[in-house]
């Protein structure tokens, strides 16, 4: 693997607890360089969402250091308007629960929220919104209330609302959960394209199939909320024992003629299976 310079995120022994009781992360250290394609892999409750919230500058750990774009990422730092502005503009976070993210009265307003907060002029706002709606194929939803949409539609609106921000860094929390197969594969492609044109993409997921497509490098979180492995996609995905230990199941997709179905199953022992 090529070594890249400019680290954009650096975490050093970061621990995070909720209300001083529930521990979500224990001494996590990692570094992400610009233009990388990274996956955070872990079972439910392993701390992936918490980690993304920290990277997004929304949670601030009491222990350990977080640096982003060469600055310490602390509550104090965000009091500086110009730093807050440039950071928010660069980093987009897709929340795991789209209900949290959709707070505007209509889909159009939702997608326009970020560009309007950035203070772009009216024409630019409109063109960004229309572009995002078109790419996600949700033009027909423009006047609907986001909270009344189906789960899959909500997810698309949430994605569009980040897209209109034009961020350099995409933080994605289980982005394919709840998407229909066609939109899912479109979105996985889209993530790869984003990366190819120079964006950094960090995806939290427990879907091993998705990871195969959207990560060059993988960090694995254990159920004890520790970072227990990191490596290239090949290294991590071929370590069955590790995946099993972290309670990560592998989904097999089979095609029978034109029907596709998936079923989860665990690997009791090493075995080989063809992909495509």
């Amino acid at each position, binding site marked *: 693997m090529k070594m890249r310079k400019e680290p954009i995120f650096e975490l050093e022994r970061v621990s995070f607890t909720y209300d001083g009781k529930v521990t979500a992360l224990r001494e996590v250290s990692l570094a992400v360089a610009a233009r990388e394609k990274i996956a955070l892999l872990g079972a439910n409750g392993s701390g992936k969402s918490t980690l993304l919230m920290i990277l997004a500058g*929304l949670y601030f750990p009491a222990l350990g250091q977080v640096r982003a774009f060469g600055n310490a990422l602390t509550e104090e730092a965000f009091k500086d*308007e110009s730093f807050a*502005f440039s950071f*928010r503009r660069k980093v*987009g976070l897709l929340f795991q629960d789209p209900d949290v993210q959709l707070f505007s009265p*209509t889909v159009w307003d939702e997608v326009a929220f*970020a560009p309007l907060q950035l203070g772009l002029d009216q024409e630019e706002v409109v063109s960004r919104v229309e572009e995002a709606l078109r790419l996600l194929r949700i033009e027909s939803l423009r006047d609907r209330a986001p*909270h009344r949409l189906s789960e899959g539609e909500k997810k698309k609106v949430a994605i569009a609302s980040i897209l209109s921000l034009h961020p350099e860094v995409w933080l994605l929390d289980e982005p394919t959960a709840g998407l229909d197969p066609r939109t899912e594969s479109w979105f996985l492609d889209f993530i790869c394209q984003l990366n190819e044109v120079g964006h950094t993409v960090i995806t939290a997921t427990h879907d091993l199939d998705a990871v195969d497509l959207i990560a060059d490098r993988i960090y694995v979180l254990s159920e004890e909320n520790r970072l227990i492995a990191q490596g290239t996609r090949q290294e991590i995905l071929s370590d069955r024992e590790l995946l099993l230990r972290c309670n990560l199941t592998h989904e097999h997709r089979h095609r029978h003629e034109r029907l596709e179905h998936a079923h989860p199953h665990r690997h009791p022992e090493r075995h080989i299976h063809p992909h495509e």
Partner: protein
Amino acid sequence: MRARRGFIERSIADITATLEKAIFSEELARKEGLLQNLDPRMKVITFLALLLAVSLSQGLLIIVALYFLTLLLAWRSRIPLGFFIKRVWLFMPFFTGMVALPALFNIFTPGEPIVTLWQTERFHLAITIQGLRTATFLVLRVGVSVSLALLSVLTTPWATLLKALHILRLPQVFILILGMAYRYAFLLLHTANSMFLARQSRTVGQMPGGENRRWIAASASTLLAKSYHLSQEVYLAMLSRGFRGEAQMLDTFRLKPSDWLWGATLLALALLAVLM
């Protein structure tokens, strides 16, 4: 066979259904009618003037006349009148009964008795003419005000209403709170409803009263905790998309000649109602 539903359950189901029909579906707001075609800013201003007239006017007949004007407007805006009248006056006892009822009696409103309810040497309880007048004024004022408010909400998509309030320079915080309140009302009602449904599907026969009350108390606290958590997360989602305490919106409203005509007419009527 379905278990009989308790009072609280029935009320919650009823309120959800009403809100759903009246506000959340925006079915009425999208019809072609008199009020739907007005500029929302002009609508807000004239309705505020009417509300003011209702609370300042000293004539019972004038308030009744304003109510008929409201009904006329509702009819011209294709609001089902039966629904519109019933919804307001059925809920009225809940809201004003507590305040209006005592006002009837000589203890609170001294005056000429018309009906004596209790008479001993030292104690006299009667309904007075002045009391009746005060109570009638109160109930009418509240009823007509609620009708006016409901009518403006019914004929304006929520998003448009909030935008109009924003442009009319209502404080940001107030508009944000209104927007959030609306979203939470929706979410909470739906959650409450599905909690009731989920319980119903697990309960055979009827729950004993005490157990039922405990269940309702426990659910209420779960709901509150949920909404608190949600509001925190929503705020973070707004921050991460560049929100800095002042939401930016697009102003796309245009006043037509008919809006000016409407404004002049209604403001004159309101002024007349106060002066008469």
